[in-house]
Structure formats: C-alpha cells, structure tokens
C-alpha cells in the first residue's frame, strides 16, 4: 500500500514538477544508485572506500568514450562501463586482502589520486583536462538526456538497483558480506571465503558506482574530471553516513538530503541576491559549513542516520499512546 503510494507519486511527479525539480530528482536518482553501490562496500561489508569519485570517473569515461570512439549504442556502453568499473574496483580492492580498516581507507585514497591523474594525463584517450562531449542517448526516437526523458531511465535504474541490493542481502552471498563486516575471523571459521567475498563486494559495489558514473555522463552530456574528485568520494560517504550505513532506505534518504541541501541553500542565495548581496556572497561558504556540520551532528547524535530517525518516528506512531511495544523491554 505504502509502496503503491510511493510509486504513484513517482509516476505523477514528472508531469507536475518544474524542470528545476525534475533536474534535482534526476540528480537524486543518480546519487541513490551511487550511494547504494558505496553502501554495499562500506555499510554492508565494512570496507571503507575513499575512491568513489575515481570509480565513478571510470564508469563515466568508459561509457562516454565507447560511444564516442567506437560508436557503440549507449545501452551497450553503459553495461560495458559497469563491468569495466567492477574490474577496476577489484584491482584497487586487492590491497584489502592484506590491509584492514584505516590502512585500507588510505590505500583507496591513493587509488582515487592515481585514477584522477590517469584521467587528466592520458590526454590521447580521455582528452585530459578538457571536457568530453557525450552523444545524446535515444530511446524510441526520444532523446533521453532531457530532464523529462532521463527521469524515467533514472527511476527505473535506481529502483532496479535498490531491488537488487535488497535481494542480494537476503542471499547467501549478501549474508557473507555482512559476516565479513561483523567478524571476519568468525566468518572464515563458518566457511566464508573472506578474500573472495571482499573482492566480490568491491566488484558488486563498483558495478553500481560505475553505473552512476555512466548515467552522470549521459545526463550531463559533458564530462570533465572535476566532477569525480576526492570531494565526490566525500559527498557519497556523507550520503551513506547521514542516511544510515547498511540500509537501502538510508541510501535514498542520504542521497536526497545531500543533494537537496546545497540546492536549497543556493536557492535562498538567489532570493537574497537582490536584497542582501553581502549575505549571498557568503553562501558558498555556508553550503560547505552546513555540509560539514550535518556530518558531524549525525555522527555525534544519530550515528545510525536518517533511516533510524525514520524508524523512530514510525515506531512512535505505531505504539502511540504507549511508550513502547508490548513485550519489549526498555
């Protein structure tokens, strides 16, 4: 029922919304896919990655260049980009066979810097620091890179990713991801192949991160390396922290909040442009400060993120007017 309402709202939304909101919805759809991918690795498998931006770059550049240079149809090149990113993800996941925790995090930081360097310096392939123009994707004769057209592609793929992730963690493979996160030694004792599982987690995660990167390329028509820096990695980590580590709903909430927050502040800025330009000029700093403060506040006060807040609210109404459910200790 609730799911039906949500789906209905999603179907009606593009016919009512202005292009501004459609654009934001599309950004959220892409961010949700990326955040789900990152959450598979960080939230469910417990391997901290600071290389999200790099993996998205691999997805974006692979899909764009396959279409541009080899003339592959966009659908094929997106799928190819996902697999390419999965392969790169496994490669940079190899240190996880030897390293844990913060050492692994630092090695993914190096991966980020190395990929960024390759993108900006392998000029013959990627065009270096110049932007790459991506041909418009078409489906049934319609251009898909308009806000309206892309919306359908975005929600179908985001929904598919969410569905896949939800089912993945009902399966043996997904459970073994969680087992590795919670206690790797215990996991290996009960017969989970820890190394294989970690690499598989890197591959699965990077697959969707690559998808998010490829979609960014097709939605924007133009890609440049600046869209895939360490800042991007931070942005996505913030999404899953704020949303809730290891939850699907959290990936969506986090993606929405982290996308909407700067957009809303920017909108306030436009309103103020006329009346108070001095305050409007400060807004980029305000955006950055709010971003940092939101992360810190969530970590200090609600480490389980928005998805926990959502559950709290739901529980509150469920048991109202009682303080807690019957049979549930305090």
């Amino acid at each position, binding site marked *: 029922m609730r799911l039906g309402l949500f789906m209905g709202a999603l179907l009606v939304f593009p016919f009512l919304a202005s292009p501004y909101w459609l654009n934001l919805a599309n950004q959220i759809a892409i961010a949700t896919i990326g955040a789900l991918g990152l959450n598979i690795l960080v939230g469910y498998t417990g391997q901290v990655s600071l290389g999200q931006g790099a993996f998205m770059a691999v997805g974006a550049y692979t899909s764009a260049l396959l279409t541009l240079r080899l003339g592959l149809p966009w659908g094929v090149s997106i799928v190819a980009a996902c697999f390419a990113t999965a392969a790169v993800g496994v490669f940079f996941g190899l*240190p996880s066979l*030897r390293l844990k925790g913060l050492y692994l995090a630092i090695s993914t930081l190096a991966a980020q810097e190395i990929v960024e360097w390759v993108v900006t310096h392998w000029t013959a392939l990627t065009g270096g620091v110049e932007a790459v123009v991506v041909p418009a994707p078409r489906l049934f004769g319609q251009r898909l890179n308009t806000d309206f057209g892309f919306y359908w592609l975005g929600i179908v793929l985001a929904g598919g990713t969410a569905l896949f992730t939800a089912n993945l963690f009902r399966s043996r493979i997904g459970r073994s991801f969680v087992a590795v996160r919670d206690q790797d030694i215990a996991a290996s004792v009960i017969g989970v192949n820890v190394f294989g599982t970690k690499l598989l987690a890197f591959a699965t995660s990077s697959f969707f991160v690559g998808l998010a990167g490829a979609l960014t390329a097709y939605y924007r028509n133009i890609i440049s390396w600046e869209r895939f820096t360490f800042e991007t990695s931070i942005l996505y980590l913030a999404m899953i922290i704020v949303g809730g580590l290891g939850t699907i709903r959290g990936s969506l909430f986090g993606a929405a909040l982290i996308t909407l927050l700067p957009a809303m502040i920017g909108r306030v800025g436009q309103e103020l442009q006329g009346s108070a330009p001095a305050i409007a000029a400060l807004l980029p700093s305000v955006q950055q400060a709010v971003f940092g403060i939101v*992360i810190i506040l969530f970590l200090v006060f609600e480490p389980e993120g928005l998805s926990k807040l959502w559950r709290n609210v739901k529980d509150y109404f469920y048991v109202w007017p009682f303080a807690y459910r019957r049979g549930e200790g305090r």
Partner: protein
Amino acid sequence: MDQFLQLTVAGLGTGMIYALAAVGFVVIYKASDVINFAQGDLLLFGTYLVFFFLVQVGLPWTAGVLLTMLVAAAIGLAVERTVLRPLIGEPIISMIMVTIGLSSVLRAVVHGIWGPQPRTFPPFLPEGQVMLGSAVVSADRLVAIPLALALLGGLALFFRRTRSGIAMRAIADDQQAALSMGISIPRVFATAWALAAVTAAIGGIMLGNIVGVTPNVAQIGLRVFPVVILGGLDSIRGAVVGGAIIGLLEFYAGGYIGHGLNLIVPYVVLIVVLMVRPYGLFGREIIERV
C-alpha cells in the same frame, strides 16, 4: 649537478613542511588512534591567522606568530572537546568522516572570512636567491629546512623530557596501564590536538611565506598520507624522514621526468609501502593483518 642541488634544496624544503604537517597528524594518531583528515585545514587556518595578525592587525611578526600559535592551540582544544570526545571508541568510518566534516567546516570559515583571492604577508624568511656553488636556490626554502628541523627537534625533546610528553607516550603504549598510573586520558587527547594544531599553524606560516596565502594551502592535507605511511603512522622520526623522502621524490620526479609525475609518485610509493611494509620505516609492527 646544479639541477640536482636545486631540486634537492627545493625538495627538502617542501619535505620539511610536509614533516611539520605530518607531525601533528602523527601526534594525534599516536595518542588517540584518530586519523585526521583536517590536518591540511589546520595549516590553512594557521596561514590565514598569521596573515590576519600581521597585515590586518599590523602586529610585529614575533607577536603575530606567537598569537597565531596561541589561537591555533585554542582551536585544537575546542575541536577535541566538542567533536572528537563524544566519538571515542566509535568505528573507523565515523572517525574518518567526522574529521572530514571538520575539514569542511574549517575551510568554510576561512573562505567565509577571508574570501578566495590570494594574499600575501610581509615575509620573514629571507627572500631572493642564494648561490650554492654554481646552483641557484631560493633562500626561503633553504632557511625553512633548519628552521623546521629545529622545531621538530624541540618536539622530540618534549616527548622525551616533559611530563605531558611522557604521559602521551605512555597512553600510546598501553592505555589501561597509563590510566592505572593516574594519567588523565581526556587531558592527553586535548594536549595532542592542541599540539597538532600548533605544529600545523607553524607549517602553515612557513607555507604561506613560500607559496602565498591562498586556499590551496589546504591541499597539503592529502599529501600528508604518503608521508606518514612511509615513515610509520606512529613515529615522529618517521614523519621527518618520510617528509624529506616524499619531498625529494616529488621534485626529482618533476624535474627529471616531468609529465606531472610529481603529483602521482607519492601515492604510488604509498601503495607500495602499504603492500610491502604497512607499518612504514619506523612504525611499530602491530598492524592488524588480514
């Protein structure tokens, strides 16, 4: 040969600034197991604070530098008390993200107050070029080397001779034993942050002198990682040696090979060290193996 000498001096000069940034990082990691992604922004704060005191207030530079160090220490204490203390014992991802959030806030504050345009303050490192044999090297980098070494030496003395320095080492060694000897862990964590902020501020002052007062100063924050991994995450000596090696490598790679290779060599070293010897040159070999 001349080129070699020039690159060596420039590399060592840069390396010593890396070392100053890395030492603060190591002090925090040693005491409290937190890896601090905001180290570059602490440097940035130092640069702008000294700019504020020297240019906007107009103090003589001794007073300006002292005040900067004082304010930096206060910032370090405040950060530890408000942001880090509630998270003691949380998982690594929380620690990483909280310092990243902190870095975002610090950068926003600097950006909001002083804006993006580059500034300069009156240099107190000597300017101009110095002839070293037949090689031309810039004087500020040449002077930066002994200056940084003296500071780092002072820090080493602090750890060996003073009460709070020894308390810090005791906590790094064994928290429970240190607790039972009556050492206050929160106080030591606070000292560590204050100390890190002060060394970062000094690094920021020197960097501001060499490259100017710009928001780019904060980029050094990520450069610290190759340095501390190479030297060993919990070793001060490692930070100095690591800083020197990474600084030299950057300039040799940039000078002899080019192609922007100086940007990437530190990270390649980082990966190699992590795979071969994760505890670095001087770190303690207690890294958790998988």
